[in-house]
């Protein structure tokens, strides 16, 4: 096919999204409806207890307050939120949409107040008084590993929601024959994605049509529609999830949360549109947390630094319930800990335990960030013991393209999601070399471990893979409107990643049309009968290929219709630049045939993951007086198969890296012994500012297209965050080598770094 366009890979600005620059974006709180009520959620202030009663009398007496819904307003069993990746053991740990007899975390919804204004609803919510008999709070791993079930007595045998194993080869034999075994304990702290826009929903119930519309969708509208329909006992076609602009997702927004059901129920009961917008304080307690992990792991190596085996145990605190994707970080951490390295023998066990904290879900690079931190630390420890250069120990273990597809560890129990998976393509040492070259390792190495102007300098390198293209499918439909404009409908969701621009580039290139003709519609269940969404770095690969295939189908139809109109054979018609040209030079535009139903549809099926690979290098300076670590330079190079839009890709990678620094240095969600969350504002939860990490550089390669899809693209955008923990911790260790410190526990806050330098006697 002759396509004059090369939008894919070109410098394309996000023209379609320019509305954001005028304040014309429409986020959920910007959407209103005539006669709508405002909801405020009453949450448990007790981490663990028996819910005895709820006194709403005073609140209900306030003028302008319409209702206070509690578990008593739910007919029959309280619905529980379904799992995205079911497995036999997690069943009893599902979250009920509202607490009935027992509360299990600080912030768990117990009632919903409906009033004429958000202020009134908030005032009234303060007057709703739940009576809760406190039970001892389970907050630590030691408490949770107790033999008896503490959170779900009667329905579970212990407090372990799941135990996954990641296995490959014969780890015991590998360890028995190793020249060196290094091992240690590591941990990463609980944190959250914290999108700048808090969550929000607006539900409308049409009693005549028995139809429910939920505004505020993100990430996976089709899964949530299915879940909602089931809970509401409605056919799926009677529920729609509608996406508006979304102020950041990073893995946490858009999952099915208790509020999805409660707000919809309120609309159904009152017959009025109901809106709920989370405030920042409740956001901290309500949205999924992530990353609270501990590990005791070991690496077996031969004398030349080749990895022979990996084994050990991991423990993840997944909070009080298992949320839809609560197991993703747990199984990922075990399966992907081997990262981009050739690890022939693996025996890892990952245990998810419940505790009285906010339920966990995903945050960008779920499980992969944690696992990467663990193995990168082990590699540097091994290099020191073997007297090897830290580059060499990575180089000898990085995968080569000749080994592809290279199988990773198998996950058991299988959760239906790539329990078996393989790296797809790539000569991993190429990104490694490009990164070190851009970083100027040789020059910077001269500073490594030296004290300069009162600060110790250190450098480190760390390598990663990033899985993408989560299956199983994505759908797209393209139709030509009467004015010749091309309407593209795709099941992917926009969560601030520049989706519209990327999809328009792909559609324009495939159709041979200028991008200006393309209009993108996405993320809502009203556009397509089925679809999937945006998670696991999948939109460009899955949505992009679906758009490409739909465009090809449309072109085929265009050719057929044109041939009929011109009275010639299809083979005699050539299609170029949105025009069909007959053998005698007669020309038809897309618009000429729009009335005849010029459309193309596609469902792109793919169950094979793509694996972007990359390397990051970092240079830090550590102030021994204060424990403060400054990032002086950070370079990340990734191999993404095919670059569709370098501008948005680099934005994603850089943004992810900066989020990673936030993770490594400060962001933390601490709890007290009674299970109360100690963070409620942005003053307690320190996310990176413009001044914090100015020196992040990224470069992308596209030498090894993914064989799994025609575009050759690989999911990317999380890669910036995955290697940050390991890289920074190793650089700090290298800077402070004179002191022999082991920064094995994140975050590396000034206090912790100072404590490493000043151990108690």
């Amino acid at each position, binding site marked *: 096919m002759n396509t004059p366009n090369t939008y894919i890979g070109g410098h394309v*600005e996000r*023209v379609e999204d320019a509305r954001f620059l005028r304040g014309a974006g429409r986020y959920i709180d*910007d959407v209103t409806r005539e006669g709508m009520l405002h909801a405020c959620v009453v949450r448990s202030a007790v981490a663990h207890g028996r819910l005895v009663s709820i006194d709403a009398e005073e609140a209900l007496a306030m003028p302008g307050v319409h209702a206070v819904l509690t578990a008593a307003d739910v007919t029959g069993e309280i619905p529980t939120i379904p799992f995205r990746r079911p497995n036999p053991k997690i069943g009893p740990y599902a979250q009920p949409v509202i607490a009935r007899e027992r509360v299990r975390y600080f912030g768990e919804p117990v009632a919903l107040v409906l009033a004429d204004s958000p*202020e009134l609803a908030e005032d009234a919510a303060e007057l709703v008084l739940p009576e809760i008999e406190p039970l001892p709070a389970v907050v630590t791993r030691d408490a949770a590993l107790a033999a008896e079930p503490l959170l779900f007595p009667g329905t579970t045998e212990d407090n372990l929601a799941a135990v996954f194993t990641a296995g490959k080869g014969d780890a015991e034999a590998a360890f028995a024959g190793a020249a060196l075994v290094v091992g240690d304990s590591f941990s990463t702290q609980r944190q959250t994605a914290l999108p700048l826009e808090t969550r929000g929903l607006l539900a409308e119930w049409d009693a005549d049509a028995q139809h429910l519309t939920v505004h505020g969708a993100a990430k996976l509208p089709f899964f949530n529609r299915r879940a909602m329909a089931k809970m509401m006992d409605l056919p799926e076609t009677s529920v729609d999830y509608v996406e508006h602009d979304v102020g950041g997702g990073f893995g946490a927004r858009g999952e099915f949360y208790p509020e999805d059901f409660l707000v919809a129920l309120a609309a159904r009961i009152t017959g009025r549109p109901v809106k709920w917008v989370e405030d920042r304080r409740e956001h901290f307690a309500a949205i999924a947390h992530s990353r609270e992990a501990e590990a005791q792991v070991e690496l077996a190596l031969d004398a030349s630094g080749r990895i022979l085996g990996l084994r050990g145990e991991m423990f993840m605190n997944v909070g009080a319930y298992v949320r839809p994707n609560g197991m993703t970080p747990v199984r990922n951490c075990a399966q992907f800990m081997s990262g981009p390295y050739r690890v022939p023998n693996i025996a890892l066990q990952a245990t998810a335990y419940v505790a009285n904290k906010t339920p966990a879900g995903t945050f960008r690079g779920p499980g992969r960030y944690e696992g990467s931190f663990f193995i990168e630390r082990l590699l540097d420890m091994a290099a020191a013991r073997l007297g090897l250069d830290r580059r060499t120990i990575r180089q000898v273990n990085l995968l080569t393209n000749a080994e592809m597809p290279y199988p990773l560890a198998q996950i058991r129990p299988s959760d239906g999601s790539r329990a078996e998976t393989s790296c797809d393509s790539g000569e991993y040492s190429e990104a490694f070399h490009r990164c070190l070259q851009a970083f100027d390792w040789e020059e910077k190495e001269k500073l490594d471990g030296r004290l300069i102007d009162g600060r110790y300098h250190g450098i480190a390198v760390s390598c990663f893979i990033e899985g993408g293209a989560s299956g199983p499918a994505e759908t797209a439909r393209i139709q030509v409107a009467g004015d010749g404009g091309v309407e593209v409908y795709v099941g992917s969701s926009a969560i601030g990643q520049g989706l519209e621009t990327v999809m328009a580039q792909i559609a324009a290139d495939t159709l041979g049309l200028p991008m200006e003709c393309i209009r993108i519609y996405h993320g809502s269940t009203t556009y397509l009968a089925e679809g999937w969404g945006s998670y696991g770095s999948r939109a460009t690969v899955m949505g992009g290929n679906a758009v490409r295939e739909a465009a090809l189908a449309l072109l085929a139809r265009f050719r057929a219709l044109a041939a009929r109109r011109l009275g010639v054979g299809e083979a005699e018609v050539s299609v170029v630049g949105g025009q069909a040209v007959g053998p005698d030079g007669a020309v038809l535009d897309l618009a000429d045939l729009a009335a005849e139903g010029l459309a193309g549809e596609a469902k792109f099926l793919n169950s094979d993951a793509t694996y972007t690979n990359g390397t990051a290098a970092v240079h830090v300076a550590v102030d021994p007086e204060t424990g403060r670590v400054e990032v002086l330079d950070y370079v990340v190079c990734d191999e993404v198969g095919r670059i569709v839009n370098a501008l948005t890709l680099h934005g994603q990678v850089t943004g992810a890296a900066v989020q990673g620094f936030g993770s490594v240095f400060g962001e933390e969600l601490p709890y007290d012994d009674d299970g109360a969350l100690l963070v409620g504002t942005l*003053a307690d939860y320190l996310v990176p500012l413009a001044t914090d990490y100015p020196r992040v550089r990224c470069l992308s390669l596209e030498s090894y297209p993914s064989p799994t899809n025609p575009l050759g693209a690989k999911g990317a955008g999380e890669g910036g965050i995955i290697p940050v923990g390991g890289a920074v911790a190793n650089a700090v260790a290298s800077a402070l080598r004179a002191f022999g410190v082991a920064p094995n526990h994140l975050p590396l806050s000034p206090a912790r770094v100072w404590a490493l330098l000043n151990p108690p006697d």
Partner: protein
Amino acid sequence: MEITLTVNGRAQALELDPRTTLLDALRDHLQLTGTKKGCDHGQCGACTILLNGRRINACLTLAAMHEADEIATIEGLAPPDDPGALQAAFLHHDGFQCGYCTPGQIVSATGMLEEARAGWPSHVSPNLEAEVALDRSEVAERMSGNLCRCAAYTGIVEAILETAEQERDVEPREAAE
């Protein structure tokens, strides 16, 4: 209570609860939803507006206090069909991802460029008396009240620097004419 607010050059009478913040008055009562709420506590900058040309967090002040003031929001900064220089620079340097902080960034940058022109020093200015020379660290410091969780900071700072440079290039020429 009844109050009149002058927003983007237009005076409008409103009936408000005296406790209403300026942010809620703009968003919920004047339907100017371009100004965003990220925290409601003065900690994120998403709600930045210009009050008599100076940038403030609209969530931290009550609407009732501003009858006599000139308020400018993102909607008033540039006509829809003709994006301003800052907006064009944000596009060019990919200074946004989800766009949620963006109105606050652009309003804040507008106010900040004005402050720099007026010679206000910042925390990192080497000399409190000299004319302000905007460089990367000056811009970052002056924009540190505007959170961007997507961390599009590099693009944001580049966009503002480019706009500042364009202004510098244009001003002498205008003076010569």
